[in-house]
């Protein structure tokens, strides 16, 4: 009965490679006492008939009651519907802007997809601007489409931003850690000095602090905290806080 959960549980926290297979041999007895279990396979796991295959390399994670997924470190971003990303406007053609989001194709952003934009009242977007928007269409068969407006018609923090500051690229795993509800990295960074931060799920982060030096310090801290344990990170942040004060 617990065969499936047991199979997974012994591998939680272990590094798995693509091609690893979890196969379940269901007991042949037709008692009727077999409970059906429901397992949710998250990203990196795929069902193939009677077995579950791993398709990405990473660490197996578990969330109660029955969700399993592979936590992988990847730098290449694949657009997915609903994700908020930072894009750079590359060209304007007619009614749409072409935005580079780091994927295989450039996304299109209609000029009407901004708050308060009408056919007469065009938004003030130039080539080279940074935009924060969400995907409405993002799949492997069509060109992705961005909007800077939510379903109610409000901007909700999206749109053009970034007069100053610095845009840099990190891996997707770090971005997910930064966007987690109670992110330790953010909390530790806040104690050093105040700064503005925009995190896009395509691995792009934008930082702005009071001076250029502080901006660069925050950038370096974020990039290095990718490969450090939390203890190492905290000691580093403490050293920086003492050094800068």
């Amino acid at each position, binding site marked *: 009965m617990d065969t499936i959960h047991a199979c997974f549980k012994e591998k939680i926290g272990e590094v798995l490679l693509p091609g690893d297979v979890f196969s379940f041999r269901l007991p042949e007895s037709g008692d009727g006492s077999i409970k059906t279990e429901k397992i949710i396979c998250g990203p990196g796991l*795929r*069902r*193939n*008939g009677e077995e579950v295959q791993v398709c990405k390399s990473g660490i197996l994670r578990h969330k109660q009651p029955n969700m399993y997924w592979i936590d992988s470190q990847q730098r290449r971003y694949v657009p997915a519907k609903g994700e908020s990303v930072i894009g750079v406007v590359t060209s304007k053609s007619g009614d749409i802007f072409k935005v580079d989001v780091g994927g295989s194709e450039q996304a299109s952003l209609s000029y009407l997809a901004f708050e308060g934009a009408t056919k007469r009242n065009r938004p003030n977007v130039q080539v080279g601007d940074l935009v924060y928007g969400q995907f409405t*269409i993002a*799949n492997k*068969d*069509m060109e992705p*489409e961005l909007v800077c407006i939510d379903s109610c018609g409000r901007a909700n923090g999206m749109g053009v931003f970034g007069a100053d500051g610095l845009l840099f690229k990190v891996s997707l795993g770090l971005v997910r850690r930064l966007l987690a509800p109670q992110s330790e990295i953010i909390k530790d960074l806040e104690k050093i000095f105040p700064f503005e931060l925009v995190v896009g799920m395509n691995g792009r982060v934008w930082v702005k602090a009071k001076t250029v030096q502080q901006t660069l310090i925050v950038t370096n801290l974020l990039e290095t905290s990718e490969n450090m344990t939390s203890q190492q990170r905290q000691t580093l942040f403490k050293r920086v806080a003492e050094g800068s004060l």
Partner: protein
Amino acid sequence: MMAHVFVCDGIALTTVARQQHILITGWAAEVVRFPVFCVIHALYCCSISLNTHRNLLEISHKICVRIHLHLESRSERLCSTEDCIPGTGTYLRHGYIFASLTGYVLRKNEGEELPVISVVRETETQLLPDVGAIVTCKVTSINPRFAKVHILYVGSTPLKDRFRGTIRKEDVRATEKDKVETYKSFRPGDIVLAKVISLGDVQSNYLLTTAENELGVVVAHSEAGAQMVPISWCEMQCPRTHAKEFRKVARVQPEYLQA
């Protein structure tokens, strides 16, 4: 075509250009026929192998030039107007019927009148999709506004060339046309049954519609690569991964299904 006679130094080289062929009477007094495109090469080779009579080379150049100038008409004279009536691929000139296409000659007898002579490229006529015909097509690319397809079959006859068709977003369904998402109706690689609504202009493709119960996706492959099984009019399921995908599914008539 014109006839030219060249005589030079004992070698009588007669060229009679007639009916896409050139007759060369060489010094061996043989009549040799060559089609136009290889006569020039033949002349050149001939002149070299004979250890060139200089005039022969000049003649070959002249022939090249002359042939080049007169190669527009490649008509073959078929018969006179008294014998047949001209059909497709032929034309009338000076009381004779000439061919205007390269192909096979067809003679059709129609009762007491003279037979109709025509030239066709292929012996079977191509079946073209007509307005209202049910066609089988394959989706090549999708767009938020329309889907591009290649038309493979008209009814149950396969086509030799692939015609291009377009299924617009508003022609996918009969109801709730503005809520249609092409990504949830078709994917590239699907086989779709559709009906022709318009033949289109010179530049545009055939316009197709799937706005009926019997029209829509017939065969589709899932992202895992297995052929999917339809569950409802808008969903199909992969038998391997059990993942459901959205398509606009056709309700095939029971008589077309193989048990």
